[in-house]
């Protein structure tokens, strides 16, 4: 009897192990195959205009979130948002408290994913702490994915993520980087 059970047991176990070993480094929602943007690319981004609409120079160098719409990344990002006390300043509903509202389309330092990444990684002047030492890039991108899921951020082509708000669609972008903010 054991001679018949043993092989099938081994097969079942192998199947389970194979299923588990597909989690890459970081956690179950590891970075996708395209890899992470380099730190230098992020630092070279110019700060965004106040309303989040940004100039073409910034757009040209901007980078999408490597996690995209990955729901596991968003869930991890939400868990991080609470564990890292982001909820304390920005509210459990992300609508702002000591820190600004993260669900609206007003981004003091730019609303592109890479600009939000930079704000989290490097901190900002009015009291936003710098998380780059405590959180590696993939964890920060998960946070950005969560913030993007709230609907107020901008896509890398300059349009707001939330397509329901046509009045916020970016007008034709000028080639002059020093135009006054609209």
């Amino acid at each position, binding site marked *: *009897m054991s001679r018949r059970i043993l092989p099938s047991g081994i097969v079942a176990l192998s199947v389970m192990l194979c299923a*588990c*070993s597909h*989690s*890459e*480094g*970081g*956690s*179950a929602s590891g970075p996708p195959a395209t890899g992470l943007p380099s730190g230098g690319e992020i630092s070279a981004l110019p700060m965004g205009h106040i309303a989040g609409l940004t100039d073409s120079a910034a757009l040209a160098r901007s980078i999408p979130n490597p996690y995209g719409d990955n729901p596991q990344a968003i869930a991890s990002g939400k868990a991080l948002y609470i*564990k*890292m006390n982001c909820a304390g300043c920005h509210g459990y509903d992300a609508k702002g408290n000591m820190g600004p509202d993260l669900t609206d389309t007003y981004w003091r330092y730019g609303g592109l994913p890479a600009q939000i990444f930079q704000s989290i990684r490097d901190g900002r002047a009015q009291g936003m702490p710098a*998380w780059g*030492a*405590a*959180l*590696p890039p*993939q*964890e920060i991108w998960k946070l950005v994915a969560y913030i993007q899921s709230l609907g107020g951020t901008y896509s890398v082509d300059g349009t707001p993520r939330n397509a329901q708000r046509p009045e916020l669609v970016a007008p034709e972008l000028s080639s002059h980087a020093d135009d006054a903010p609209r």
Partner: protein
Amino acid sequence: MSARCTLVPSVALLARSATTYADTPMSYLHTYGPAGDPITRLGWGLGTISIAVISVIAVLLLGGLFRHRTERASDDAQLAVGREGGGMAWIYVGVGVSTVVLIICMGWTLVTTAIVLHPPSTPALTVQVVATQWWWRLRYTSANPSRTFTTANEIHIPVGQPVRFELASVDVIHSFWVPQLSGKMDVIPGQTNVTWLEADKPGVYRGQCAVFCGAEHARMALEVIADTPVDFRAWQDDQLREDPPPGSVTVRAGQRVFQAHCAACHAIRGSDAAGIVGPDLSHLMSRRTLAAGSLPNTPGNLAGWIADPQSLKPGAQMPDHLVSGPDLTAVVEYLNTLQ
């Protein structure tokens, strides 16, 4: 499949385990405390009774198969059953004995489960255990609030006293199992399960998460160390003692590295680090293992774990490459001072 093929290896295994239990820390065939002893006795008892029953049946069966037929050669026409003092007695006796034995076994099982449900006396110590993927947070409570402290993965209990464990989970179902001390108790999110342990003699008793809980379930171990009451009090005092501030330049640098890179998730009492996402690392060098019992606590293992946790425990929540180079050396030196 004949009983013989299972019997011989089982006996051999039992014989081995009786003499070399220290080499098999997860063996539940011998336990060392009143939370587990009744169960083990029950297990052995039922096992023995089962083997006896099987043996009797086997003997009878073999006897029946190979009974000498010469007596009956001249009595082809007679049915064996019809003979006086024949087969019905076998049935009556067999059913009667089996029933009695079964009732004894059932009674014994029920009594055993009732006994192990509650400790023999009210536990003086309660440990709050929070299971999380993939480590164990421990909080020692006390009537004196300032003797309440948090640690991780290594439980100390005083010998000869029952200790109560309140089990909670922050994510998925886990199971708290220290096989040489007790049976399993599931840890279920949304409720607090209560179990207890008691050790008869000092020693290290290894535990394990016993319900599949994710990628690193296999590396979610824990150790229960039973100390004499004096040693236990000393351990508690050690955990509550405040370490002196860092002395040398490298150790201070290491503390700065720790504060910048690690303090968001980890806590070290006496410093400014008080994160709760990862295990509390206060007095880290007093622990035998790292990474929830996965690695012996040596400087090399500590450095390797900090540098590249994903290669040792892929999928663990601790990210890779947060600290490297001279920062890594400094922080390891700092952690080595946490006695």
